[in-house]
Each structure stands twice: as structure tokens, then as C-alpha cells.
């Protein structure tokens, strides 16, 4: 599915992307030919039920997995068939990740978890600034074990944006959180997107979140089944589920 009028060169472009992987004795067709373009600065929510292929797509975009066929281009560079070394470089320089289970390093404090990224990034922000952006300036020296789930997820967001990534990929960022905490996390994401201009992709099965997006893409059975543009992005505070 091609976008209508393109305001700029897309950040990502996928052409006829498929992913097949064996699970036990059966082959799972996770993606069956996805054509997609993502543009600079936009906040995209990707909706889909479990098994729709949205996580697989995100992993391929993020350089964590490779496609079976088709093409992924990042700013014109082909990621298909890139080496492990090249994908590591790509993740390191361009991509920020936020996961459902936070994936913080338990032995590092909030600030140090962010520093783990800023130390290897090319033009990072100050770790304190990143944490301030997600409202955790006061909890910087706490270890993950001393933070609530929402706080941990906001540290993960700070960690992801601190390297000033070109693209922020979030896989069910509120999946493990209650609604009030989830909204705090989404606010942090919206604010980061607004203030840093990072292309942000949030995948979720929670349709209520879609209203905060510029664009909503729906996946089902490994294909894009729908796409719409919100006339106005809703502030996450107004959301509820």
C-alpha cells in the first residue's frame, strides 16, 4: 500500500516483505507481503491482534530479525541481507527500542541504564535530560528493583530516546501496565516524539491508543488490512481503557 502524497522521503520503506519461520513441524507465515512507508517525525500506531505479525514487522524494521523475502530500506539503504555487524551498527546508531517487559539491566541504576546507551552513541543527549523528559529526574539513582513498572518503562523510554534515534520502535509499551500508569508512559512517548521529532512506531492490540497517533495502520494475518490518518492527535491524558 503506497502512501498518497509524500511530504518527504520515507524513513522506512518495505516492499513485499514476507517472513516465514518454522514452529515445530509447521511453517508460520508471519508476514505475507507487507508494503509500508514511514515518514520523518510521524507517530504511527500499528494495531493488530496477537499473531497478526506486528511484532515480527517491528523486529525486522529494528534490525533484530531478517525477512524471508522482500526488501526493507532505511533511508534508502537496503537492510535486507545485512550482516550481523552491519545490523548491530544500525541498531546502535539509528534505532531506539521500548519493550513490553522494559528490559532494563537490573544491576544498573536508572541513570546508568541510560548511560549504557549514551556511552556508545554518536550524538547522545545528557542522560539526565533524557530522564527529565520522561519525568524521572528525581529517581535517577534508583535501581530497577526500586522502581514501579511504569517508572521502569519510562526509564526504558529515556534510554531509547537518549541516543537521539531516527526511529523509536515500541512493542506493546503499556502491555504490562495498568491504565493510569500506561497513560503516563504514553505521555512520555508523545512528548519525546514532539520534542525530538523522532519517527515513532507503537505497536499494540489496544485500539484506544490509536487516537494519539498521526497515522494508524492495522495488521491482520500478516498483511496490512487498513490505514487511516487521525485529523488531530489526542493527548494521551484524554485516553482511557
Amino acid at each position: 500500500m503506497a502512501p498518497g502524497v509524500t511530504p518527504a522521503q520515507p524513513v522506512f520503506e518495505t516492499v513485499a516483505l514476507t517472513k516465514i519461520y518454522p514452529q515445530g513441524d509447521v511453517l508460520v507465515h508471519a508476514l505475507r507481503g507487507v508494503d509500508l512507508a514511514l515518514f520523518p517525525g510521524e507517530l504511527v500506531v500499528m494495531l493488530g491482534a496477537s499473531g497478526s505479525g506486528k511484532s515480527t514487522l517491528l523486529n525486522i524494521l529494528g534490525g533484530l530479525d531478517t525477512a524471508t523475502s522482500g526488501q526493507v530500506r532505511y533511508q534508502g539503504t537496503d537492510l535486507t541481507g545485512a550482516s550481523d555487524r552491519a545490523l548491530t551498527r544500525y541498531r546502535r546508531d539509528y534505532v531506539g527500542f521500548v519493550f513490553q517487559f522494559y528490559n532494563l539491566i537490573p544491576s544498573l541504576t536508572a541513570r546508568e541504564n541510560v548511560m549504557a546507551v549514551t556511552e556508545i552513541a554518536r550524538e547522545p543527549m545528557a542522560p539526565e535530560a533524557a530522564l527529565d523528559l520522561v519525568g524521572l529526574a528525581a529517581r535517577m539513582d534508583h535501581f530497577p528493583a526500586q522502581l514501579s513498572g511504569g517508572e521502569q518503562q519510562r526509564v526504558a523510554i529515556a534510554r531509547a530516546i537518549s541516543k537521539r534515534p531516527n526511529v523509536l520502535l515500541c512493542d506493546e509499551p503499556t502491555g504490562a501496565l495498568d491504565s493510569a500508569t500506561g497513560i503516563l508512559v504514553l505521555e512520555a512517548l508523545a512528548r519525546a516524539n514532539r520534542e525530538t521529532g523522532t519517527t515513532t512506531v507503537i505497536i499494540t492490540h489496544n485500539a484506544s491508543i490509536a487516537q494519539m497517533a498521526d497515522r494508524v495502520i492495522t495488521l491482520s494475518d500478516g498483511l496490512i488490512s487498513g490505514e487511516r490518518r487521525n485529523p488531530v492527535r489526542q493527548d494521551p491524558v484524554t485516553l482511557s481503557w
Partner: protein
Amino acid sequence: MARSVLHTKLRREIWQMRGQLLAIALVIAGGIAVCLMSLVNLESLTATRDRYYAERQFAAVFVQVKRAPRHRLPTLAAIPGVTALSARIEATAKLTLPGFDEPVSAHLVSVPPEGQPSVNQLYLRQGRLPDPARDSEVAIIGSFAEAHHLGLDDTFSAIIHGRQQTLTVVGVVESPEFIYVIPPGGMLPDYQRYGVLWMGEDALASAMDLRGAFNSLVLQVAPGQPVEDVIDRLDRELDRYGSTGAIARADQFSHRFLSDELKQLRIMAIIFPTIFMGVAMFLLNVVVSRLISTQREVVAILKAFGYSNRQIGWHYSQLVLVIALTGLGIGITTGLWLGHWLGELYMDYYRFPTLLFRIQPGWLALLAAISLAVALLGGWRSIRRAAALPPAEAMQPEGPARYHVTLAERLLRWARLRQPSHMIVRQLTRRPGRTALSALGIAMATAIVVVGNFQFSSVSLMVYTQFARVQKQDITATLVEPANPSALYALARQPGVRYAEGRRIVSVELVNGHRRWRTALTGLPEGARLQFVVNAALEDVDIPTAGVLLTDFLARALAVHPGDTLTVRVLEGRRPVLHLPVSGITSEFLGVSATMNLAAMNRAVGDGPRVNQALMTVDPMQTDAVYRKLRDTPGVMATTLRQAMLNSFFDTLARTFLTYTFIISLLGGIIAFGVIYNTARISLAERGRDLASLRVLGYSHHEVSHILLGELALLLLIGIPLGWGIGWALAQGIVTAMQTELFRVPLIITTHTLALAASVVIASALASGAVTWWRLRTLDLVAVLKTRE
């Protein structure tokens, strides 16, 4: 049904963790193998010796006299407690063997006309005993026959009591008296240059001018009868015949060395297995507790299904038992094999007719019980924890681990550690107990290699001291009778001899109260250039003009200090009893000797200026001529060569020490690998998720490996120096425990030994590091991120 499912689970998990489990089993196997090796060797040698002694009627009391008439024998046989005796003639001879130019000396023992003596019977390997009617026939000891490839009917020439004769070999024999065949004045066997020969009694008596007389008596004493009483009676009866005093079996040369060796084996059978078992227990504990913490949810579900604590406990105990039994199996097989092999090695210089292979089933049962107990005890805490977990609690995932900023990091703040370095430090400090145990495991591996190897440097120092600092002569010639020192001038004038000086050695008994020690007292001439006495710092000690110097070992044994007066009973000549001051303590690694000024000794003994050994340095180009001349000089009884002693020493060393060292290093390596591999694998399992997260964040494989391998490197950094320290302490203990009359091994730990220990451990670490590195490479990033912690 339920039972079989758990079985399947067990089987699969064992297969999954086979590398780790095998590493632990190998450590257990190492402990058992060393233990069994030493036990088998010890028991086999002991059993072989005991049976040999019993079968061959080995004597309980030995006595040497100058010349005693045979008609005294019935009186001696009537001494209460004596059950059998055998009077004989002993002599020394110089031999010439075709194609062998170096001096060869031999000890001759007579065989009674009726054949086998009633005491110290001979074991016939080949041929027969000498015919009493033929005076040129000899039976020779097996070691000598092998060294010179002598067979039946071979001949060689001998100078006995100054007369040359040709001897024919009619038999190859072994004797319980000469299990350990060492030339007089030597320290280790030298089969080529020293042999034992048995000759017909009449032939030897006429050669030695001892017809109707004997100069050596061996006796058996009834069990339960005090040997001391028999010795006292013999000393009284034989005093007038020039007895040097009867000795008990415990003081007999060959027996004493064999006993020392067995004592050392016993120590080794205790020290090494203890270390191995300790490390194995630690490894088991770590692995089992790790396994169980990853199986919390499984345990909870099993319990929710209705499995009892006992069933679950038994399930995990089985895992532990499988490891222990594997280790036990490998250990027993290897240990029995090694023990047998070591026994064969020992047979080379212990002249037993056959080696009995012995191990008491009780030992095997005990070892099995110990290793199973160690294994179960090792896993006990974690197994109990798994079984006791309430299901609801166990179904909850374990919370994020608690960490804190460590003191070390505060102190190292200036160093601006990178985040991966913080992770390393905090991981190590989060579980200080486990870190300490890992470091201790590495330390133990290092220590084992240190202990296995330090002896080589120590023994080298010992040899250097003995042959380069203390004895500088090339040749020592022992005279038949003490002679006037002027005899030395004749020797010194021989072509090829550069310098000669004399000394006198007399047999004495040193007495301090109830403590007594039979040894040799050496008289050194003033201004000696070839013979020295050194102290513990290896500095020369001046020979005082009066008084005796004792080696530290002897001074301790007699409980005397410098300034004390010591009673010295001279056992030859006019047999005076002297009271001499102890004027100093010396330090020698080999033998136990007392030293004094030669002139003072001669004055005290009272038979004028005398020497009975000549020490010489020779022109290396003319050594053969010197040997021949000495062989043909009637007044010279035996000749020993420094080079030959050195060669024999290093030959023996190479065969036994190095073999042993190699086994110990190998086992040290196995321990190191077991500890490090398990530490790495456990770290990997625990940190997989963190490391995958870092990979996702853009860290390279190399950078992530740094975290795990850095942890290992830090453990090595702590463990290796600690191991050096522990090794040093153990070596100190071993050196002290193994002090014998023959050797006092000095504690020398060279940088070479330390470096070798570190290398063995580092090599094992590199091997486990490589495995970990490879596993990290194949880490499934996506799968790790999808799971909860």
C-alpha cells in the same frame, strides 16, 4: 505414569546440561582417581611387601660383627625369642664388566652350603643358587642383571679382598633385604654401578679369610617378643667380636626407605582428594541451585498437580546422584588404572618378585559413600528450597534482582568506569558468597598445580646444594681400612688426578638421655677444598676445632641445642664413648649426618691420624684411566662418581616426579575448567536477558562478551594469587609432613612454578571463555525479549 514423566524430564535435562554436568563429574572423578591411585599403590605395595617378607622369612634383627666364631651360634640361637637365625659373610667387591669402564662396586652375601638360608631367603627369578662346591659361581640381583643384560653363564671379573677372580652367573635372584637397592653413600638406586651378589659360603669365607667364622647375622624373633631384649642380649654376646650393634628391622636400610615411601603415599592419599572433593561440592551446589531457580514455575506446577515435597526432592536428588555416580564411575576406573600403572613404575626400583594388585572393597565403598554424600550435601540446600516452596509463591516470577552501588565503585569513581564495567563489578558483589567460592575454586586449581610442581624446583635445589655446594669432588674412593693420610699423596700423584683430600667416616650412636640415633660421623680436614657444611641459608659453616655439628633434622630428633653435651658411642675400632659439645647446627637436605674436625676425631677415637675416604677432582679427559687405576688399587674398596649419582638422581626424578607432576597438573586443569566453565555458563544463563537487551541497544557481540569474560577475568585475577598463597601453605604442610631421614625437601616456589600454575588455569579459562563466546554469538535476541524475567 507420573514417575515416568519426571524421569523423562530428568533425562532430557541431563542431556541439555551434559557439558556442565560432565565438568562437575570430572572434578569428582579427579578426587576419586587421585585418592584411589594412591590407595591402590599404597595397599598393593604394602601387601606385596608383607607377603614377600613373610614368604621369604625376612629378618627382624640384623647385626654386623668384625669376626665371630661359628661355634657361638647355638648360644645365640638360644636367646629367648629368637626363632631362627642365619649367619653369613658379607663383603664388598669391585667388578669389571665387559664394555663398561666406570667403576662398579658390589655387595657380596654368602649362601649356606645347604642352599636357601633359613632367614632372608632368596627368590629365584632364573637359574639356581651357587653350588657350594664351585667357588666361582654367583647369583646376582635382578636389577644388576637387567642393567648390564647379564644372563646365565655370563662371566665378569671381580676383585674380592684384593684378589681378582672370574665369576659366573648361575642365577638371577631377589631378596627381601634388598628391595630398595642403593649404593652406600648414594641416595638413589644406581643399578649399573652397584649390584648385590650371592656366593657360596665356603668360597666367600676363604676369599675373606673368615673360615669357621661369620661377620653378619640375621635373626627372626617370635611374634610378641620384645625385639629390644633380643638386641640387648646380642649386643652383650657379640660385643667382644667387634659388633657395631644389632639393629631392628625398622632401622634396616631397604625397609626404612620403603616405609618412608609408603608414608608419603599415605599423605598424598589424603591431601589431594580433600581439595578435589571440596571443589566438586561447591560446583554441585552452584549448579543445582541455579537449575532449581530456573525451575521455580515447574516446581510450582508439579506441586499444584499434587506431587509431594518428597517426590520433588527425590527428583532433583536424582540429578545430583547421576552426576556423582558418573564421577564415581570415571574416577574408579581411572584411579584403578593409574594405581596399577604407578605400581608398575615403582616395581622398577623396588625389587619385588611380583606386584600384588590390592584394593580393599571397603575403600571403594567408603569412596562411593563419601562422593554420594558430598554430592547430596552439595545440592541439599537448593533441593530443600525447591521442595519447600509454596506453589503460589513459586508461580510468581522472581522479582528483579537487587543491586547496589559497591564500595569499590565509590573508590574507583575517578576511573570513570563504563556501564559494562559497572555491571561486572555489581554482578560479582551482588552474591559475594558465590563470587568468593568461584574465586576459591580457581584458587584451589592453581594451588593443586603449585603443589604438584614445586617439588621439582625444591629437589633441584637439593641436588645443587648437595653436589655443587657441599660435595665438590668428582670421585669418592672408600678405603678398605682407615689409612694414614700419606696414602693420599700416592693417589694425588696418579695421572689425571688434579687434587685429593681425605676424610674419615665412623659409625656412631649419638645419645642424649633416652633419645639415640645411629648414624655416620664425618671428620673433615682443616682447610678442606672439596667438602663443606652449610647452614639453612646455604652459607658455609666453619668446622669448629672441638665439638660436633649436627644437621637440623638430627638436632631436633635428639632434642639437643648448640652448647649441649652429646654422648657419642663410636661403633668401630676401640669403641670409645665420647662426650662432645654440640657446637652448631647445619642444614642438609639429604641424609642425616654429624660432622667434626678430622684431627679432633682422630684424637678422640685414639688410633692416630687416619682417613678412610679419598675425595678427588680429576681431569675430565683422563677419567677412564683414573677409574681403572682405582679399580686395581687393592686398598680401595669402592668408588663413587658424582656424575653418575647426578644422572641416577635425575633419571629417577624424571620417571617418578615428572609423571606424578603431570598427573597433578592435568587434574588441576580439570578443576580449573570445571569451575570456570560452570561459572561462565551460569553467568550466561543468568545474564542472557541483560546481554540480549544490550545487543538490541546496539552493543556488538564483542562488547557484550566483554561483560561475561570480564567477570571471569576478574575472578582469575582474584583466584590465581589466592591460589599461589594456598599452594604455598599446602606445600609447606607437605614438606613438613614428608620430612624423612633420606630427604628434607626444601620449600622453594619459583616464578616458573607460579607461572605454570597460572598458565594451566588461564588455559582452562580460555577454553571455557571460547565456549561462552560462541554461545553468546548464537543468543536469540527476539526470544529473550519476549519472555518475562
